[in-house]
């Protein structure tokens, strides 16, 4: 049953989605010929981001000058679909997703012989600002499809603040 008390940052959903899609596609381990798509996966392979619900306002405070500060979170999955996976290949897929989570958290990941650290989150508009992006799970096998492809997934939550003056 849905929680009737959930309040969504409706206007923020599109802003956060666009920023996350841009950020995810900067992941250094993503081959240049590939792209993480939004909510769409090829039948046999692909990588995609799926929002889990909407952007939820988890806390709201008003200051004495009349400005409102909301803390919001935007949970999402990144799915990696591939077929014909051997045991070693499955492990590589899991590591790829786990490293994506680590990179989004600001930890250093190594691709080939090069180390990469994300130094800042993308700028947002309309008074919003990313605070943290953190894994909500480790990468794991999510689904085995009828064509024997496998969907591996990692759950991630972006937290951001939204400040504005309420009338």
């Amino acid at each position, binding site marked *: 049953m849905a929680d009737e008390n959930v309040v969504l940052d409706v206007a923020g959903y599109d802003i956060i989605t666009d920023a996350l899609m841009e950020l995810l596609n900067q992941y250094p381990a993503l081959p240049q010929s590939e792209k993480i798509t939004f909510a769409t996966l090829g039948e046999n392979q692909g990588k995609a981001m799926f929002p889990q619900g909407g952007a939820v306002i988890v806390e709201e*405070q*008003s*200051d*004495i*000058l*009349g*400005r409102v*500060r909301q803390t919001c979170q935007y949970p999402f999955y990144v799915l990696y679909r591939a077929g014909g996976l051997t045991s070693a290949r499955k492990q590589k897929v899991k590591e790829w997703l786990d490293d994506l989570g680590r990179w989004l958290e600001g930890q250093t990941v190594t691709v080939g012989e090069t180390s990469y650290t994300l130094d800042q989150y993308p700028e947002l508009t309309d008074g919003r600002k990313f605070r943290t992006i953190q894994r909500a799970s480790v990468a794991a096998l999510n689904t085995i499809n009828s064509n024997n492809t496998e969907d591996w997934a990692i759950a991630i939550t972006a937290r951001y603040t939204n400040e504005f003056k309420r009338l």
Partner: protein
Amino acid sequence: MADLTFLTTSGETVKRELLIAYLHTSNTGGNPSNPVWSPIGSRVTDSSEELDWSEDSSTDILGVTRTTMKKPVITQTFDPWDLDGGDAAILKIWNLAIKDQDYSALAAQDVLIVHCYAGASTSAMFAERYEACAIRPTGLGGEGGGVVGMPIDITYGGKRTVGTASISAQGAVTFSASA
């Protein structure tokens, strides 16, 4: 000054943001007759003036109680008050307190309290100016993963001048002392 009325709708409570304290943030030596007023309290969620009337009650041998009071000493705490480079008020106090440790200047700050809910009109709102307030930062820091805060206590003092204030659409405050 004649009694004032509230500018808010009868039957409605008064929004908290209609009572704002402003700090004179012009540079030291700036023109005190043409100050720049910057609001105090961005990100502060709860702050109230505390009025100490030095109340003293005594009961005589006939059982009659009498109470004396003095002009109030007004204090106000802003906690937490998070550092923000775009907040002129906190920037001024940080420079005086943390960079310079200028306790003399901290004890002589010019503060204007604007009661936006009271007055003759929204262009003539009741305001009181205290020209020598003591502003005392009580800490500097915060928890890991959080932000740096610098809570302050203000004791309103110095010459008190009442008058009216207007606030432009851009937030510029103009104070006029009552005749």
